[in-house]
């Protein structure tokens, strides 16, 4: 480019992004429109806060009179969580290995990855509703729902961990004439075992939390007790249940934290 053209052409350091500006304007217009459609005005906010204050007042003091019901619900939640975690992990191990593209052939890893995607696509509460309809009310539906969630989560992370292993170690073991399973046992699993334990502890935490919720849709556990208390407006019992759940989760975090610390 000659000096002449440089001088005659206006030089801009930053090009204006008209597309982005128009997009931002459209988002703003939509937000105003949506809020007005849903009647989210200032008046609605004031009424809502007033209701909230009354609700909180009725939750206090927590009522632990029906503690037997509470303990029974909690125990059932724990059982659902532990069962679902163990079954989920046993399934995740082979599923994760079959989904890892560096050790499984493409015709196997492809469909298995699709299966994992299906497990992850639906929220576990929706899966719980489906299982309640399919196998009936109670803990069985809750266990099934959390198994699906566990397989979706753990096998995906596990497959990713397997894809990051050193293939040199795998190659060396394969070159000794070891069969496929022996290679998995001696070259693949040792490299990912500690990460698998980490995922497992995390999933146990997560299942404990989730098992308190599946009861709301009738799949067993403390969630059912909580939902019943809501429907009867027993807000003091509701707060007792919430405190118990928070205590359980904190305890679980504490224990798994200790285990993780000890493994290092």
């Amino acid at each position: 480019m000659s000096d002449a053209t440089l001088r005659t052409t206006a030089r801009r350091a930053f090009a204006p992004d008209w597309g982005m500006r128009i997009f931002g304007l459209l988002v703003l217009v939509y937000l105003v429109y949506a809020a007005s459609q849903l009647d989210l005005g200032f008046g609605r906010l004031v009424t809502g806060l007033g209701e909230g204050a009354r609700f909180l007042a009725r939750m206090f003091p927590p009522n632990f009179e029906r503690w037997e019901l509470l303990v029974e619900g909690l125990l059932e939640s724990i059982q659902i969580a532990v069962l679902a975690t163990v079954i989920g992990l046993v399934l995740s191990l082979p599923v994760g290995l079959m989904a890892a593209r560096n050790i499984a052939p493409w015709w196997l890893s492809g469909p298995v990855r699709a299966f994992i995607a299906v497990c992850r696509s639906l929220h576990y509460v929706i899966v719980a509703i489906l299982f309640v309809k399919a196998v009936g009310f109670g803990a069985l539906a809750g266990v099934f729902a959390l198994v699906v969630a566990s397989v979706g989560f753990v096998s995906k992370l596990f497959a990713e961990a397997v894809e990051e292993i050193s293939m040199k170690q795998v190659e060396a073991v394969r070159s000794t004439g070891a069969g496929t399973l022996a290679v998995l046992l001696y070259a693949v699993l040792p490299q990912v075992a500690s990460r698998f334990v980490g995922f497992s502890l995390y999933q146990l935490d997560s299942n404990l939390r989730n098992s308190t919720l599946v009861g709301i849709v009738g799949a067993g556990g403390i969630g059912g007790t909580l939902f019943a208390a809501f429907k009867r407006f027993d807000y003091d019992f509701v707060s007792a249940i919430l405190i118990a759940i928070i205590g359980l989760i904190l305890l679980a975090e504490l224990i798994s934290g200790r285990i993780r610390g000890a493994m290092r």
Partner: protein
Amino acid sequence: MSAALDIRGLTKEYTAGKPVLRGLDLSIGAEGITAIIGPSGTGKSTLLRCINRLVEPTRGEIRLKGGVGGDVDMAKLSGRALRLARRRIGMVFQEYNLVERLSVMENVLCGRLGYVPLWRAWLRKYPEQDIERAFQLLDAVGLPEHATRRADALSGGQRQRVGIARALMQRPDLLLADEPTSSLDPRTSVEVLEMLTRLAAAEGVPVIINIHNVALAKRYARRIVGMSGGAIVFDGKPEDLQDSHLSQIYGGEDWL
């Protein structure tokens, strides 16, 4: 001298039409060390990896001879037959390739994975004579006290010794060593080569070794094969290797 390995017309193309190995012919005797020298990227590693089929050859024959397994063409095998043939070929790697999270003993016993049933490997219930031989090999490579240490706790020289013990644990008919000393310091390199030579001679296993250090190659090998551009350009005794040959193998002469 009878041959342990007979390679005929071996060609490897990673991309079609661009051969890394160009119709190689090579026969390896039943004992002694054969050193393969040549510039980086000339196909030395590919050649070794074709022999035990970590790399798929495009064309050619790789006949493994003698031993209890009889004659087989490595290039034609697959599945179980390939695994049985791989047991007969030990391999030592540049970066040792030990399973870092396993103990030294477990790494050495990897050499038996092609022989023992899976449940034995899983439960670490190896036959008594395997354990005994593993201890003997650990003594022989100079690591008698390290059986229960984790492989990632060892130094480079120690790891390569474990790598050699693992390869010999297979009771191989042939040993391949792919740049076994390139990650080691000069003194450790000599110690490791010394040991490899001694143990291979004691076991009566022929060794093919890829090596960048020409002086070490001349010192330990009884035969030197020079490769350039995917073909063999020199094949003879160490004392016959002249500067003119080196210039032909590596190109140029200012560095000589």
